């Protein structure tokens, strides 16, 4: 259903797009042999802004090997709007370092003369895109939640307490990072391979600039989890200071496991050391927009609300009746979480297969 209404909605714009000879380059973040959902959302956003008939090139880069090959395959069927998969192989691109990636974007832009460059507003997108924009001499527009036309976008400012409509009036390219939760990756059409894009190699052998080689990637320490990714989960359960300890987060995890949900946290819970930082939801953490968001022991500071406001249904469990979270919650339960959680775990329908 989502895909058909999406198509219908943007068809009128495609006529407009033809007059401008617009084209988009979209950066594909990939891992484990597949393009990340956020990047597919960026393709959807590019198609929405430029119109269905404008060519969209998905840039897949890495040092090579089987994983890159798998990602290229996935890229070619990831979204029907993709008309070309541009492949860059270089040992410099094996890690997510901003310096070679920004240079790659500059070179690809000079060759392809795209009217737009899109990426997801992930930690990688936020790192690379502004650097590339500066090298190209243009202002980027970050964390866009809605497209109006090719050069006009809406983005939240002041922790989502205001929406700014911004127009790019430079000579291009128009560089945009998008909030993935605002642009569904069209799940019904993904993986069907209707676009049959061409796969084109990009010569990345001459990546060189003053800054390349001055940064070195040492490593990534990550928490392995079997739960769904925060940004993509249909149900998110998060805990705050009210949980009181890291051990008590297990109560949340039990509920999350039963619902197949992802687990998030407020800044207070991260700062207190209950959970790692990559679980933080809010203005400066992750933005989520699940079908169901359950906030447990979270007061609801402005900065946290910025990360959850677009959730379809918000549930708050907090023993403080005056907690600001109740002002945005669809359903509020003023109850001690240590009583409510075990009862919920016992009574919620299991969604796990």
């Amino acid at each position, binding site marked *: 259903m989502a895909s058909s209404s999406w198509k219908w909605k943007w068809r009128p714009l495609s006529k407009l797009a033809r007059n401008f000879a617009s084209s988009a380059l979209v950066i594909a973040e990939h891992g484990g042999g597949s393009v990340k959902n956020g990047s597919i959302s960026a393709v959807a956003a590019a198609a929405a802004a430029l119109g269905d008939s404008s060519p969209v090139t998905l840039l897949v880069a890495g040092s090579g090997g089987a994983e890159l090959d798998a990602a290229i395959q996935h890229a070619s069927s990831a979204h029907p709007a993709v008309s070309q998969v541009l492949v860059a192989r270089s040992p410099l691109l094996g890690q997510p370092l901003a310096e070679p990636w920004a240079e790659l974007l500059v070179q690809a832009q000079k060759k392809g003369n795209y009217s737009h460059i899109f990426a997801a507003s992930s*930690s990688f997108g936020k790192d690379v895109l502004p650097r590339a924009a*500066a090298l190209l001499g243009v202002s980027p527009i970050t964390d866009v939640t809605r497209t109006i036309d090719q050069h006009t976008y809406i983005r939240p400012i002041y922790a989502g*307490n205001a929406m700014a409509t911004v127009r790019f009036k430079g000579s291009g390219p128009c560089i945009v990072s998008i909030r993935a939760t605002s642009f569904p990756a069209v799940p019904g059409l993904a993986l069907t391979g209707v676009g049959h894009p061409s796969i084109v190699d990009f010569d990345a052998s001459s990546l060189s600039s003053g800054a390349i080689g001055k*940064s070195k990637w040492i490593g990534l320490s990550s928490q392995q989890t079997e739960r769904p990714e925060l940004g993509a989960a249909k149900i998110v359960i998060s805990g705050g200071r009210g949980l009181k300890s890291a051990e008590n987060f297990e109560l949340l995890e039990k509920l999350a496991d039963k619902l197949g949900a992802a687990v998030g946290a407020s800044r207070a819970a991260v700062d207190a050391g209950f959970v790692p930082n990559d679980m933080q939801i809010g203005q400066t953490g992750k933005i989520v927009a699940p079908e169901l968001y359950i906030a447990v022991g979270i007061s609801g500071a402005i900065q946290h609300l910025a990360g959850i406001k677009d959730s379809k249904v918000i549930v708050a469990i907090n023993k403080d009746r005056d907690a600001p979270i109740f002002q945005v919650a669809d359903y509020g339960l003023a109850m001690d979480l240590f009583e409510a959680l075990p009862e919920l775990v016992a009574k919620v329908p299991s969604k796990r297969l």
Partner: protein
Amino acid sequence: MKVMVAVKRVVDYAVKVRIKADKSGVETSNTKMSMNPFCEIAVEEALRIKEAGRASEVVVVSMGGEQCVETIRTGLAMGADRGLHVITQDSSSLFPLAVAKLLQALVSSEQPRLLLLGKQAIDDDCNQTGQMVAGLLGWPQATFASKVSISDDKESVCVEREVDGGIETIQLQLPAVVTADLRLNTPRYATLPNIMKAKKKSIQRVTPEELNVVIGSDLEVLEVTEPPKRKAGVMVASVDELLDKLKNEARVF
């Protein structure tokens, strides 16, 4: 080694902002303004680097109208050595690209080895300036830093970064640009004696013209509006009622 820190004056993080009636922006007159929280963290880190004997001088810089001086004074009261104020008439059109160009010009005259910034300003939420100035300077960058260690020979910096999947570690050759994340440190409060001392520290004023930077903009804010409001919710009395509502009313189960 000199460390330069860029700081921004913004509406205080605890203020609930009001949109102007003409939709031209957010009300900032008669509103409490403070140093952007991420900038405070950047200043604190610069001071710690100096206190660890890795830096000789900490210079705080800011761009904007007259009142930016207060923000620079705050940095000086925390312990920075001196300030630089790029005075601009209309700070509403001062987008990150212009700030990055001004910073680039200041870097070329001041020659710091490390440029520290916050990862984003809590007003425009752009998260761009550090990356842009690094690109313009041709320096390596480390964004979202949660730990910064300058090497003994002061030739490189090792940075732990808060990325989507966890913590990433990278090493940069100096000079470099680093942007601070929330967990890098806890900024100190300025004590009264230090606030008094800060009044004697020098703040040099420069204009964009003196720096040979033309502030133009390829962006235009057409309007600023209220975000869509969520409809009022209901309070439920028990877990059973909550589950019933989720199942039969919200239909998420």
